């Protein structure tokens, strides 16, 4: 057998190790396995490639994917990623560590998670954040379960029809098997209807989830929501875009108990949907029901400031089936990604991102309407994403734009098309996109 770069064993090493064990061969180490389970066939896998061949194989494959200018959001936003981030997150002391079980040699991980929790609390206005979760939709699904777990013997959670479709899908999947009853709150003028919410509250009500900025891109007004939800003894959960939270009213200001969302807009590349990072934060009184890991500050034996995984009595490895969640990891490296991004941007940078998004998306919105090929749908404030009603076939529109190098005009379930313009989209790109529509569609 020729040597392989990831296996350091020489023939002599193997021989000496087997001798120590008292085994005649490597196969003897599987003497406890019924022999008909030992796979004797040839694995249907490619032959081993050299590193150069692997690189070239992926480079060629990458060329097969058209590189488009992204004018769609719907839960994944093409914000700018500063070069510092991947430089930091590639440091192998962060990258190749496990969950920080041995805190004495994991202070790096524990400190940045503490910083991440602090950032999420600042953005949402909440008291406590966990150490992060898989993605926004799963964080939303966990928050729905938290509503039910906090209420006694109540199983209905109301979810706004204006949440992003992929969030709704995951919420419904989790709810189905946990036995949670999901009732969808209707919308009015593109926003969650307060009257609809009130009408849907019954004896089984445990909580409600509403989006801060919704799937139409609209910044929702949640005046009166918390009062209605709390009067019925339910928990209020807000699904948020954390980038937008630098400028729009926070879940805490609206009176929510729990804030969830996806950290992707904070500098994480699109990467075909993952890895991203879910965040979840709550008020102090919900702390013991919060799923996921939490890092806390303490001191070591010598009085030095130290950080540890804390409040673990909530977790699966101690509570097993009585745990608040089955989650045993977080998306630590992506939490670092977000932490470095927010550190670079600061409050002014985040506000600037929103200012540019607002400027570009409104420019796009006006230019599209001026073509006469779209109708206005809603008259409500938006930040970077919006929908229009196309006055022609939406499929042809999307196809023509794609051919011209744009991913834009994504059809929604309501018959609209969705657009998004982040700070990465230049005025020139927007003009070029509009030109395609002017010249080449209906």
């Amino acid at each position, binding site marked *: 057998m020729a040597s*392989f770069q*990831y296996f*350091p*064993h020489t023939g002599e090493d193997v021989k000496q*190790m087997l001798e*120590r*064990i*008292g*085994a005649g061969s490597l196969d003897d*180490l599987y003497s*406890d396995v019924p022999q008909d*389970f030992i*796979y004797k066939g040839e*694995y*249907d896998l*490619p032959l*081993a490639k050299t590193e150069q061949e692997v690189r070239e*194989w992926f480079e060629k*494959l*990458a*060329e*097969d*994917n*058209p*590189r488009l200018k992204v004018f769609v959001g719907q*839960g*994944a936003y093409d914000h700018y990623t500063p070069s510092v981030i991947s*430089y*930091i997150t590639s440091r*192998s002391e962060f990258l*190749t*560590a*496990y969950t920080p079980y041995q805190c004495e040699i*994991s202070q*790096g991980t524990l400190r940045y998670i503490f910083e991440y929790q*602090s950032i999420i609390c600042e953005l949402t206005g909440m008291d*406590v954040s966990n150490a992060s979760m898989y*993605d926004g939709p*799963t964080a939303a699904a966990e928050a729905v379960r938290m509503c039910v777990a906090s209420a006694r013997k109540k199983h209905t959670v109301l979810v706004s029809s204006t949440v992003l479709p992929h969030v709704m899908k995951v919420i419904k*999947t*989790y709810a189905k098997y*946990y036995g949670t009853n999901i009732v969808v709150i209707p919308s009015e003028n593109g926003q969650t209807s307060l009257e609809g919410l009130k009408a849907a509250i019954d004896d089984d009500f445990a909580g409600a989830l509403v989006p801060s900025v919704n799937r139409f891109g609209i910044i929702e007004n949640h005046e009166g929501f918390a009062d209605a939800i709390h009067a019925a003894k339910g928990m209020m959960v807000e699904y948020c875009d954390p980038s937008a939270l630098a400028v729009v009213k926070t879940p805490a200001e609206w009176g929510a108990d729990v804030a969830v969302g*996806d950290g992707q807009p904070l500098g994480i590349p699109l*990467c*075909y*949907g993952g890895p991203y990072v879910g965040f979840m934060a709550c008020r102090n009184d919900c702390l013991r029901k919060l799923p996921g890991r*939490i890092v806390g*500050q303490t001191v070591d034996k010598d009085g030095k400031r130290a950080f*540890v995984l*804390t409040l673990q009595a909530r977790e699966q*490895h101690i509570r097993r089936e009585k745990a608040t969640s*089955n989650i*045993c*990891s977080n998306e*630590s490296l992506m939490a670092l990604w977000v932490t470095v991004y927010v550190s670079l941007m*600061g409050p002014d940078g*985040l506000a600037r991102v929103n*200012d*540019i998004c607002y400027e570009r998306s409104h420019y796009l919105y006006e230019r599209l309407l001026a073509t006469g090929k779209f109708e206005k749908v809603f008259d409500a404030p938006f930040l970077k994403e919006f929908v229009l009603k196309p006055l022609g076939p939406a499929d042809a529109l999307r196809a023509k734009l794609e051919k011209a190098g744009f*991913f834009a005009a994504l059809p929604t379930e309501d018959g609209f098309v969705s657009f998004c313009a982040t700070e990465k989209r230049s005025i020139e790109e927007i003009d070029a996109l509009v030109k395609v529509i002017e010249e080449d569609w209906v």
Partner: protein
Amino acid sequence: MKYYDKLIFELSKSGRSGFSLPQAPTAPIPASLKRGSAPALPQVSEVDVVRHYTNLSQMNFGVDTGFYPLGSCTMKYNPKINEEVAAMPAFTAIHPLQENVPGIREIYEAMDKSLAAITGMKHFTFKPCAGAHGELTGLMIMREYHLRRGDFARTRVIVPDSAHGTNPASAAVCGLEIVEVKSNEHGLVDVNDLKPLLGPDIAGIMMTNPNTLGLFEGEIKEIAQLVHDCGGLLYYDGANMNPLLGVVRPGDMGFDIMHLNLHKTFSTPHGGGGPGSGPVGVCEKLSDIADDVFVSGFHGNFGVILRAYTYILMLGRENIKLAGKYATLSANYIKESLKDVYKLPIQTVCKHEFVFDGLVDDGSSTGKSGATTLDVAKRLLDYGFHAPTIYFPLLFHQALMIEPTETESKETLDCFIDVMRTIAAEAASDPDLLHNAPHNTPISRPDETRAARQPVVKFADSKQLLN
């Protein structure tokens, strides 16, 4: 490692910034929708950020720093070509809702086919983002299978007492009631204990094979037969797949559903606790159901899947047959080299990992309190090793679970063995040296009780406490 005591917030100075963006007019957001005041986030320059995180990284231990024998976590070497591929802009710039992406579809298909070949399953879903997420997804598939057959009575799932803590937790989140089956004196599922638990209310069983003691469940064929006969399905927790990589396929053992941890068996980095990827494989009759269960936002952690497929291409058909065997060789080598100084409750051949139950001589005969597994773990840090998994599985009071993986050289293992023997000798003569360990790390043992009693979980609270 040197101690560095700053938080990024503490470097903040009003007026500094680390961003580079064009100017734009302030967005005219209506006052009723605008946040009251700007968030109190750090205001730091680019160099502040780079130095701060570089300093933090130097208080961290990773696989690239040294040997990481953390049981059940498969801390194998993370190849660097994986990282290069995952960072290719042609992949990172693709929006998840783009449909015309043949290059990406080809990777998913090739990955599906490869994992099917390796495990003997029919088809994989890649949506789960971690091992526990895969367990939950697999159990949802199990429940959906019964529901679609109109069999609503199967609401209980059997979980061995040696199972990973996530197993019962995942089952509970999936709305299943847990029935525990005991281990026998050999550390294996007791078939006689299992039989009376089976019935028309059983959705299935969750098993790890080899189990958390690193032992192969040799009666799996009979267990599979019994569970199938009662109408249940078998779930394979793939956290311990590494010793079987290239040797045994879970599908051949009778498992219907399984998850893999790409961040364990397929060499993708753990990232300090994620992102991982926990694809779930199913047998043919469950293929459609697997695609219908939406457990995450888009297509799973594509960046992790890319890394894992890179590993499979490097490994290839030739080398895969040695991966599991070398992992098993390493574990047995350490076990046999230390069993005279650490208690080995189960003597048989192990797979990728094994469990000691504390020291043979903990030093209590010196009149001092004996050195515990925690003490041994902490002393290992002084010698530049990561500690094994401790106090798991729960079957032993002083469990010390060691998993060396196939990427460690004999020299590294020998060095670890020497240190473990040194620590055993230290324990026997001076247990206080271990009680007070670690001595050479950035911090000494922390006050965990204080952390839990007065939770300080964000910078704003940290400030109040320090003042």
